[in-house]
């Protein structure tokens, strides 16, 4: 299944696009959820923990984005992003609920 | 800052000369493994010592920032000079090897 403009197959283009979206949006979600987790867990004053979590968030975003392009397929990229997001999401919900009690 | 820069430049030149390909083109003949190893040690020692003059003069924060800046600048100057003016590059390192430690001692006693 080849496109007209060049010899690059459509499947390849879709895979690349998929990885880009996984890295950009999925990666951000993972980073944000990780920063929330860190903010609850870090043993320091509230505002200081938040600051640290925000700074580390970008490092997590970088790692996630690089992973999305390093892994063997676009499916794996999405699996990794969604999997991490799920685990972190559950963790965050738990930490928040524990704080409420 | 200047003394740190001198030590950085000398250190980088030593590390450069410790590489066979650069040694051969700069010195004109292959370097003995012992010489190359000595140069590598000297280079790392000079680089390791180079932050201290800046930090001693300006405090650890300003000193570290200044040291980073001259570290990058001296490496850049060296790499720029190497293909165009290799003898100047090496000569400058010779000056730095003397002026650097001398400057550090003077600053220490001044």
């Amino acid at each position, binding site marked *: 299944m080849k496109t007209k403009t060049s010899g690059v197959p459509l499947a390849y283009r879709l895979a690349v696009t998929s990885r880009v979206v996984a890295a950009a949006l999925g990666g951000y979600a993972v980073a944000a959820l990780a920063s929330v987790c860190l*903010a609850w867990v870090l043993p320091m*004053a509230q*505002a*200081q923990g938040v600051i*640290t979590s925000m*700074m580390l968030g970008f490092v997590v975003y*970088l790692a996630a984005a*690089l992973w999305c392009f390093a892994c*063997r397929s676009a499916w794996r990229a999405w699996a990794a992003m969604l999997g991490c997001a799920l685990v972190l999401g559950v963790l965050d919900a738990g930490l928040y609920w524990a704080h409420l009690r | 800052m200047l003394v740190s820069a001198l030590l950085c430049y000398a250190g980088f030149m030593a590390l450069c000369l410790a590489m066979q390909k650069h040694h051969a083109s700069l010195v004109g003949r292959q370097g003995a493994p012992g010489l190359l190893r000595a140069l590598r040690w000297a280079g790392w020692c000079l680089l390791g010592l180079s932050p201290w003059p800046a930090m001693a003069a300006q405090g650890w924060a300003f000193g570290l920032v200044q040291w980073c800046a001259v570290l990058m600048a001296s490496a850049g100057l060296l790499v720029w000079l190497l293909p*165009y003016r290799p003898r100047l590059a090496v000569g400058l390192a010779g000056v730095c090897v003397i002026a650097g430690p001398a400057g550090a001692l003077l600053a220490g006693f001044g």
Partner: protein
Amino acid sequence: MREGFRQAMAWLHTWAGLLFGWLLFAIFLTGSLTYFRQELNRWAHPEVLYQQAGTPESLASAQAFLEKHAPGAPNWLIIAADERLPVLTLYYRQTSESGRGSLVETVVDPRSGEAVQARDSRGGEFFYRFHYELEMGYPWGRWLASLAAFVMFVTLVSGIITHKKLFKDFFTFRPGKGQRSWLDGHNALGVLALPFHLMITYSSLVIFMTMTMPASILSRYDGNTRAFFNELFPATAGMGDTAQRQAPMLPLPALYARYLALVPGGQVGMVSVDKPGTASATATFTPKVGARVAYLPGGGVTLNAVDGSVVRGLAAEPVPQRVAGGFYGMHMGRFAGPVLRWLYFISGLAATAMIGTGLVMWLGKRLLKHAGATVQPFELRVVGALNLAGMVGLVCAVAAFLCANRLLPLALAGRASWEVRVFFLVWLASLLHALWRPNGAGWLQQLSAAAAMLLSVPVLSQFATSRGLAVTLPQGDWAVAGVDLACAGFGLVLAWLARRVWRRALQARAEQAPPRAVRIKREAH
């Protein structure tokens, strides 16, 4: 898997670098210029005669001006004069009839207390704001710039991973070898200044992190971001609340004396007076920004403005806040003296050139593949045009902005906006020209245009203003003279580059000529 990983990172580096390269080039070039923002501000307002005044005198001038023009304002902000820009910058909110306030900014002479009269120009502030707001509305410009910063982060790290011989090729630079030289140059610019590139990129993300990574604030503070900022900056906690009954405040010089008693030898960078003229007025004295590496707004000593008692003294910030402030401060380099400032500028230009060499290589490699073809593929023509307009065109736009500052009539309404319009119009013109002529001839023409404009800047300063080099050099006014001299210097560099492009084109044409002559001879027989 190993080789696959490096290859994947190389692919990512190539494409992320291309797609965001033009935007990042513009951000890094204008960002580099920002290190001389105050000098550009001074250069852009040559009519201003700067007078030095001591802190008590300048605070008294500021207070006199503010009491006259903004007696009922909720907050006064006084940015103290410093060596690089010896004027007071005052901010206050002015409520109009509709009730909506606007922030008024006035530049005041510290000795006379009068507003400084100068030509309407944004000067260095234009480059400063452009590099993080891209002249786009709030908050879109910052979001795009932050996205570009993150892509830069990805591109840098993927580049490091890809560069197999980082240590082996540390000192390697082989000029005059075509694509190999471009790669050596790109690698050298990247590796040798790597601490700067990583610092500037990561710190730019930290600066806007409360906007771009707010999840933890919202989660920990239940969506109450105000509570987060109040915890960080307790001095600002009471600001903005409605004022109470009137009460005269102590003169600022007297309050400054109280501040000095607490912080001996402390130099003031900023004074913020909250609810002036009321019983709950406070004055917050913030130390000079350049006194430390870290940039930590919101600190300082807060005094009760009516009786001078201490509301809040200086407190050492906790480590995480200091780390974040350290990144912010390292990015801005406000503490840098002249030598370090030049090193910051050169490092910024190195990053800009690293991006530029990358863009040139991306195209060069693919043009080589199509070397035999008579017609370039459309995409490569577009990339070529974007490279030319994005790099040389941008320099043309900067040069035109500086020329416009000297040439536009002083009485022109909206003069400052017109200078900015000239910048964008020239940039657009360079893009149209580049689309028409993306290759050698286009580069020669735009490089020559940029060189001509930059070389004309000191000439224009001399003949269109009263502060050309003939005046500023003997006076030792290095801020203004420096801008003129730097323009001349960079103009010469661009002229030299233009000459190289021209000579290479002549060489290429000479190499092509004999085969064509042979073909014609053969056809004639």
